[in-house]
């Protein structure tokens, strides 16, 4: 390795070193107890010895007197992935649930005892119901425990003796609890000493119209038929309506009721309930009965007509109609609401004859068919709602844009656009709209915005950005009407944009490329003609033996092309001068500069060399053809030059 390269390498290494050291300090993590990667951790299942240890441990936690911790400890077993479909998981889950049940039974038993002691028979009844449910659930859990232990033993071959003992202890505990529950049930029955009651309810008709009164009646008695007189019976209907009735001597009760406007239609339930009060609560049990009726509204009819049906925005439209009810005739003082499509228009009230009239101005809407809806909502009425729709045709005034502009434009210049907006239908009073905005877009990009003149014409001067790309673009003119009754319109034209910077660059490029191409063409031509270039000669001479005069002369004569002969003559002249004076050609100098420089050294050769140079320039640069006479003259001048140089 060279010393300089070695030095540079050392410098680079010395400077990169801090970064490298920094990197090392960045990534050097201190040693620590290895954390375990969860995603790659192996999956294992408990071995037989581990299951034995588990079950042995578990037996210690099964304490029938205090099972709450066990329930808490094991309740999350369902979250353990390997518990699914595993008898151990089922066993632990059932054990947890049973522990919870037994704990709940113990506390509920105490609560029930307290309720019975204080005569709170309602609470005691409710508690005993819960106890029965817990007891029933616990029975099935016990069965699960036994079967799970059997499965564990047969599947894993582990010893389940201790667990069986623990489960048996739980079984015993549950049997004790069941005995207590039975005792408490007996005690409750003794304390209750109550009689059941029977209530019935009927209605005068099963199909009810809203607002129509109908009668409901029923009886309250004991199962043996003994009438219960003077008792309060509650009748519930229409969701929230309630009436309190007192039974007569025969236990009967009756009331005229009705469903209010707003009631839901369809099957409704009327309920009669008896809840013993005061001393009766200790002697009688509650009872209830229900009957179903079909609720409906009276039909209503809404007839509507619109005038005119073909209209334009801002036109006045009148809606007239009549509202009538089934079997009644015209409905007066009812509110009819009107909508145009989804848009609220207003209200009208029916007169004595059920008639209504509603007028409105057509708002700005799209061209086409629209719907007027007349709605009788009947939210608080005994009649059913009614809706009638009527179509209207809205026709805005169509417009079109006439405009003129140049279709070829240079980027960076202004484009004048002038034109007018006209109604398509000339049957109207005016031929053009008198207001609105005209917006000009070039390729969907907003470029100009102006207000339409009062005679409907517009003139815009759109500055085409200098950077607009070369080629075809869309010039779009959009008219946005100010009057909602007039439709907007747009028109577009394709224009060709010549990008100014690109044009200039192209011109500059062409200007630069032409001389280069010409030079290249010249050189190619010279090569194909076998001429030796000015630059190649010295190299040839360095590489080859010096050519003799005769050889060089014969080489010139061997050339067929007259201009080639002249070029070779000039090259040989340069060679002769270089051999004689040591003056070498300079790459950048022109033949004429070469002449001036050389003549200073050999003044006697000035004319002859001048002739050769002149002929060379003609052969090299002139577009005119070179003839044999000129070639001959060049060879003669070369011979004379050799003589002049050597004298």
């Amino acid at each position, binding site marked *: 390795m060279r010393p*300089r390269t070695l*030095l*540079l390498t050392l*410098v*680079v290494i*010395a*400077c*990169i*070193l*801090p*970064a490298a050291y*920094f*990197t090392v*300090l*960045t*990534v*050097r*993590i*201190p040693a*620590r*107890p290895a*954390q*375990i*990667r*969860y*995603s790659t*951790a*192996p*999956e*294992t299942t*408990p071995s037989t010895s*581990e299951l034995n*240890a*588990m079950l042995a*441990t*578990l037996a210690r*936690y099964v304490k029938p007197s205090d099972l709450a911790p066990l329930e*808490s*400890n*094991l*309740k*999350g*077993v369902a*979250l*353990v*992935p390997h518990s699914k479909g595993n008898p*151990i998981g089922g066993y*632990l889950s059932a054990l947890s649930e049973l522990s919870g049940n037994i704990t709940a039974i113990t506390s509920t038993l105490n609560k029930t005892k307290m309720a019975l002691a204080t005569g709170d028979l309602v609470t005691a009844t409710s508690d005993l119901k819960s106890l029965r449910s817990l007891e029933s659930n616990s029975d099935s859990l016990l069965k699960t425990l036994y079967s799970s232990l059997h499965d564990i033993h047969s599947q894993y071959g582990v010893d389940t003796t201790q667990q069986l003992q623990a489960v048996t202890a739980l079984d015993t505990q549950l049997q004790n609890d069941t005995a207590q529950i039975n005792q408490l049930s007996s005690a409750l029955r003794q304390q209750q000493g109550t009689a059941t009651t029977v209530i019935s309810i009927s209605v005068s008709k099963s199909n009810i119209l809203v607002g129509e009164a109908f009668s409901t009646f029923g009886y309250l008695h004991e199962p043996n038929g003994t009438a219960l007189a003077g008792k309060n019976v509650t009748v519930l209907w229409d969701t929230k309506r309630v009436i309190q009735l007192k039974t007569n001597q025969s236990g009967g009760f009756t009331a005229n009721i009705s469903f209010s406007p707003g009631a839901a239609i369809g099957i409704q339930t009327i309920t009669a309930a008896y809840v013993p009060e005061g001393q009766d609560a200790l002697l009688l049990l509650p009872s209830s009965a229900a009957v179903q009726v079909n609720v409906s509204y009276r039909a209503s009819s809404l007839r509507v007509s619109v005038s005119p049906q073909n209209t334009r925005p801002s036109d006045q439209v009148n809606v007239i109609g009549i509202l009538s009810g089934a079997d009644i005739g015209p409905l007066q003082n009812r509110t009819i609401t009107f909508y145009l499509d989804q848009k609220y228009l207003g209200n009208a009230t029916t007169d004595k004859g059920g008639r209504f009239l509603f007028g409105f101005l057509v708002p700005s809407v799209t061209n086409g068919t629209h719907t007027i809806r007349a709605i009788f909502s009947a939210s608080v009425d005994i009649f059913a709602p009614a809706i009638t729709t009527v179509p209207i045709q809205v026709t805005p005034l169509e417009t079109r844009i006439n405009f003129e502009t140049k279709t070829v434009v240079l980027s960076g210049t202004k484009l004048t656009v002038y034109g007018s907006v006209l109604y398509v239908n000339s049957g109207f009073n005016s031929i053009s709209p008198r207001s609105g905005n005209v917006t000009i877009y070039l390729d969907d990009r907003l470029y100009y915005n102006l207000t339409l003149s009062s005679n409907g014409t517009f003139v815009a001067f759109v500055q085409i950005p200098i950077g607009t790309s070369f080629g075809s673009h869309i010039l779009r003119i959009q008219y946005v009407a100010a009057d909602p009754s007039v439709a907007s319109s747009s028109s577009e034209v394709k224009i060709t944009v010549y990008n100014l910077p690109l044009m200039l660059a192209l011109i500059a490029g062409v200007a630069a490329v032409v001389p280069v191409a010409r030079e290249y063409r010249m050189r190619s031509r010279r090569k194909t003609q076998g001429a030796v270039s000015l630059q190649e000669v010295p190299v040839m001479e360095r590489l080859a033996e010096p050519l003799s005069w005769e050889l060089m002369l014969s080489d010139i004569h061997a050339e067929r092309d007259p201009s080639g002969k002249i070029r070779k003559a000039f090259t040989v002249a340069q060679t002769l001068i270089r051999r004689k004076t040591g003056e070498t050609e300079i790459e950048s100098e022109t033949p004429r500069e070469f002449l001036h420089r050389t003549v200073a050294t050999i003044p006697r050769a000035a004319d002859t060399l001048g002739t050769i140079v002149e002929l060379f320039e003609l052969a090299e640069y002139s577009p005119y053809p070179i003839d044999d006479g000129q070639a001959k003259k060049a060879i003669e001048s070369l011979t004379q030059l050799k003589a002049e140089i050597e004298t």
Partner: protein
Amino acid sequence: MTSKVKTATRKSIALAVVLSAILTVAVAYYWPFQDAYYPLNEDWNGCSQVISSARNATIIWSYNTVGQSNDTLLAIIGPRTSFSQDDGVQIQMFLQNGGTVMLADSYGSGNTLLQRLNVSERFSMYAIADLYFYSKNPNFPIITDFARSAITRNLTGIITERPSYLENITQAKVLATSSPFSFIDQGASTRSTNETLKPYPIIADLVIGKGELILLSDPNIFTNQLLPLKDNIHLLWNILDLTGGHLTYDVNHLESAPLSTWRAIFTQEAHSFLSPGTRVGIQAVLVVLIMAIALGVYFKSTRKRANMLS
């Protein structure tokens, strides 16, 4: 040495310095943090999701500013260095003023803080495993036994990784306990005959002054690999809810690579001062600069070779 060599040397030094600076900054910014429990570490053993779970999070390198506000959760997760007397005083003040501190540790470094706070509870420093309540293998015990509290609200199970357990519990309320089948793992996560199966306290909290100190005997609950599993993230959310989602994350007591702290400061500052767009712009400029240097060197060497041949 000729003047040509001197110039070339100067150019080489300048180029090397620029490359070195770019390399250093790029490493500082782009090299991922790999330190365990580090809040900027997005790998499996980092705690970047803890930071992103908070409504607003602050990373602190010292406790100088902790005592100034008490409406934040001071999270100390996986400490590996001891707590100084000054640290103890600052945290004591923070707690007295009503602050909430979460200390999650299994290696025992947190015990120095508990000692400074003058509480009896300690991390046992022994890992526990479980024979049945685990996910994948006994190294990942599942905790399902929770006491009622705001911290354990709606939790059904959390996954831990070789947790230790809490001992000497006198004042603290135990909030979570391992299953009855857990045991002190004296090696290779297999149980020897003298290892007793029993539940161990895993999470507890105690009131100090107006504040609350939450002790968790496993920092791995909050690593990126375990946080999304089971109810681990709900546990974090419950704890964050105590302070309205405000979090202050202590990295001062983490064991980290020598330059992690400076890189973290640099990264944090870069994120706070530069918008995402500006950062992308700077990266683009750096790429263009490096490409320009590389192309310059290439063309120069090509030209030299051509000159030498001619």
